[in-house]
């Protein structure tokens, strides 16, 4: 397998891996390193790539496992929390700040979920994976995925309503 062929295979889901890693590791740099590391692992084992049923699901599982390993490692104390700057030039400044605040709030809410629920929500609501694929990536049963997702969505909704009604009720 040539380098370009590998990159063409990998590029469609590279950003998905990055986003998944970032969901777990929070920091941009850590997520970049994780993605880089896993792609490198895939590249060094490129002979086996034909044997994988679903390279994307396999890579996502690797990302998940790698991130959990990173979080368990001693270096995890060095992980920094980095907030994203959402850019949206079309709206007025006041509105923009408000929106940015609300969107950062959603991200924070997701960060507070247990890691399993966070992963399910990331894969379903953001990456829009089918339940069967999520089950494959997370090595879980489909019913467990649904339960986790439902719990995550309900928790987020409760928090959002609380925030929305703050100062009103």
């Amino acid at each position, binding site marked *: 397998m040539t380098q370009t062929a590998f*990159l063409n295979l990998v590029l469609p889901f590279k950003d998905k891996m990055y986003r998944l890693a970032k969901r777990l590791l929070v920091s941009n740099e850590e997520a*970049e390193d994780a993605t880089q590391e896993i792609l490198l692992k895939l590249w060094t084992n490129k002979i086996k790539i034909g044997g994988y049923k679903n390279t994307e699901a396999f890579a996502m599982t690797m990302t998940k496992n790698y991130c959990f390993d990173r979080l368990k490692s001693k270096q995890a104390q060095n992980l920094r929390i980095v907030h994203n700057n959402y850019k949206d030039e079309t709206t007025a400044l006041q509105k923009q700040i408000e929106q940015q605040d609300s969107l950062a709030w959603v991200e924070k809410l997701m960060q507070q979920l247990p890691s399993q629920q966070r992963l399910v929500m990331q894969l379903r609501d953001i990456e829009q994976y089918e339940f069967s694929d999520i089950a494959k990536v997370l090595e879980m049963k489909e019913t467990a995925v649904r339960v986790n997702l439902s719990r995550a969505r309900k928790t987020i909704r409760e928090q959002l309503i609380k925030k929305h009604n703050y100062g009103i009720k």
Partner: protein
Amino acid sequence: MELNNIDKLIEKYLEAETSIVEEKELRSYFSSKNVAPHLEQYKYLFEYFIIAENETMPKTVSLKPRKNYYKWFTVAASFVLAFGFYTYNHVKPNTQEEEALLAYYQTKKALQLVSNNFNIGAQKVGYLNEFESTKNQIFKSNK
């Protein structure tokens, strides 16, 4: 889109029973301008999903393995360790030996000094012998 329909979809969504198509429908509804006031809190959620989906990795991927200088740390550490063992086992006993030798010489010197002085003292005691013999002569002659 019918509001009733959206309400139903939200219910299904919370139970995680919506399909991808239905979730896309929800997304497009909440990214539109006219969201019903009682659903406004969901707006941020779906807006966030869209923004989060479009996030990309800023760095490009390189397939060359990163040079890992950390592995040389182990080599350096083993050198330091070996050197430490060497000095512990060889240099430290040497200084002890030197110290012992020094102590030995100093003791010897001190003992020599003592014996010299003792000899001087003993010579002086020799006069007492003279006194004794003279006294013996006198007392013998008296008897």
